[in-house]
C-alpha cells in the first residue's frame, strides 16, 4: 500500500456506480440532453458549482455570432506535435489523432484554434496541484495547439495518455483521455470536452464520462482506431470528428467586410 488508507475517501466505487445508475434512470424519463448534466451528484465537484436557476434562452447577437480569429501568428506548426517538446523521445505509445471539425449543418470550421492537454503515458500531468505518484517524463509536457485547415481538418501527434486516480471516491480512476478546447465560427459554439480511447474498461465507472446521460452522445467522445491512419513502423492512428452547434452567421456579412 503506497498511501495511508485512512486518508482515502470512504465512499466506494459501488456506491458511486449505484448513484450513476439512478441518475441515468431518472434521465431516461425525459428527453436526453446532448451535453453533460450540470447537476450530476456522482461527480462530487458538480454539487456546489451548478446553477440552480434555469438558463435564460436568448438569441445570440452581434459579437456572439462571430468568434475570435486566430492565425499563423498565434500557432507555430510544431505545436501540433507533442512528441518533440523535449530533447529526447517521450516514453509511451506514439499516436496520431486526426479528424474534422464541422458545425451542426456539416460545414467545416476552417482556420480555427484547437488546443489539447493531457497526462503522460504514466497518467501524470505536469501541474502543481497534481499528486499522483507516477513518474514525470522529462521529454513530455502534454500541451498542443493546431489550426484547422480550410476543410476543418486537424492532426496531432502525441503519446497515448495513461489512466489516473482521483479523489472523487475511493479507488476512483479516470479513463485515459485527451482534453480538447475548440473555437467555432461563432462564440456560442465554444466547446471544451474530452476524447477517449476505444474499449476502455473504466468508462462505466467514471462519473465524469457518465455525466452525459445519453449513451449515443457518450459514444461520440470515443475515437475510432483507423488502420489507414496508422503509419507502418511508426505510430497508431485514431480518428475523432468534432461537431459544434450550427453557426448562425459568418464574416461574409457586408457590415463587417470593411473591418475584417
Amino acid at each position, binding site marked *: 500500500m503506497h498511501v495511508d488508507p485512512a486518508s482515502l475517501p470512504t465512499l466506494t466505487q459501488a456506491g458511486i456506480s449505484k448513484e450513476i445508475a439512478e441518475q441515468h434512470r431518472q434521465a431516461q424519463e425525459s428527453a436526453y440532453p446532448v451535453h453533460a448534466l450540470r447537476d450530476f451528484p456522482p461527480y462530487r465537484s458538480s454539487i456546489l458549482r451548478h446553477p440552480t436557476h434555469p438558463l435564460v434562452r436568448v438569441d445570440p447577437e452581434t459579437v456572439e455570432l462571430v468568434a475570435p480569429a486566430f492565425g499563423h501568428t498565434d500557432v507555430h506548426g510544431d505545436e501540433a506535435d507533442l512528441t518533440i517538446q523535449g530533447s529526447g523521445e517521450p516514453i509511451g505509445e506514439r499516436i496520431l489523432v486526426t479528424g474534422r471539425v464541422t458545425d451542426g449543418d456539416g460545414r467545416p470550421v476552417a482556420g480555427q484554434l484547437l488546443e*489539447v492537454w493531457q497526462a503522460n503515458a504514466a497518467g501524470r500531468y505536469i501541474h502543481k496541484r497534481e499528486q499522483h505518484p507516477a513518474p514525470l517524463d522529462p521529454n513530455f509536457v502534454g500541451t498542443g495547439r493546431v489550426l484547422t485547415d480550410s476543410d476543418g481538418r486537424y492532426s496531432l501527434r502525441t503519446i497515448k495518455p495513461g489512466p489516473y486516480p482521483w479523489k472523487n471516491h475511493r479507488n476512483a480512476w479516470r479513463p485515459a483521455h485527451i482534453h480538447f478546447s475548440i473555437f467555432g465560427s461563432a462564440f456560442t459554439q465554444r466547446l*471544451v470536452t*474530452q476524447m477517449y480511447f476505444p474499449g476502455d474498461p473504466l468508462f462505466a465507472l467514471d462519473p465524469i464520462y457518465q455525466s452525459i446521460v445519453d449513451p449515443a452522445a457518450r459514444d461520440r467522445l470515443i475515437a475510432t482506431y483507423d488502420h489507414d491512419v496508422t503509419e507502418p513502423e511508426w505510430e497508431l492512428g485514431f480518428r475523432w470528428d468534432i*461537431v459544434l452547434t450550427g453557426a448562425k452567421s459568418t464574416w461574409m456579412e457586408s457590415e463587417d467586410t470593411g473591418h475584417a
Partner: protein
Amino acid sequence: MPELTPSQTIGPFFGFSLPYPTGPYIAPVGAPGTIRLHGTVIDGAGAPVPDALVETWQADADGRRIAVPGSLRRDVTPFEFTGFGRSASDDDGHWFVSTVKPGPTGPRTAPFVAIVVFARGLTTHLFTRCYFGDEEQANASDAVLGRIDADRRSSLVAEKDGERSYRFDIRLQGEGETVFFDYDRTL
C-alpha cells in the same frame, strides 16, 4: 445531420496548458481608454473557485466586431486589439482582464462583454454577459436585459469600483446566482 459532440468538464489540470501570459491583456495597462474588468468566481457555499477559466469576447470601443488574429501572441506582434481575453482564476478565485469598454453594437443593445466560464466541477461551460453599471440609459433599453427578472438583472451588470475599474463577480450557484444563457437549446 451530424450529431453534436457533447461537452466535458475542463477539469483541474488545464493550468499548464490553456492560460498564457498575455491572455488577460486585451488592451495595454495604463493606455488611454484601458479599463480593468475583474471579479471573483464563487461557488454555492460562497467559497472562491480557484480553478476556473474565464474567457471574454467583445467589440471594440466603437462597437465594431473584430476579426484580427494575434490574441495568443500579443507579446511578439505589434499591439492590436483582438477582442479576446483569457484569465485563469487565482487561489482567491479572482480573474481579470485589461481591456477597453466596448461600444454599443446596435440599436437597443447596451455595451456588453460576452463571457464563457469553465471550471472543475462544471460539466458544461456557462455563457453570460457583462453589462456596465454606468450605462443606465442604454441598459434600460437593452432587449436582453429587459427580459431578465428585475431581481436578477444586477448579476449581469459590472459596477464601477475604482478609477477605470469594473467589478463583475460570477456566482455559479446560490444567492445572487449569475444569470447564464442558453443560445441554442443544446446547453
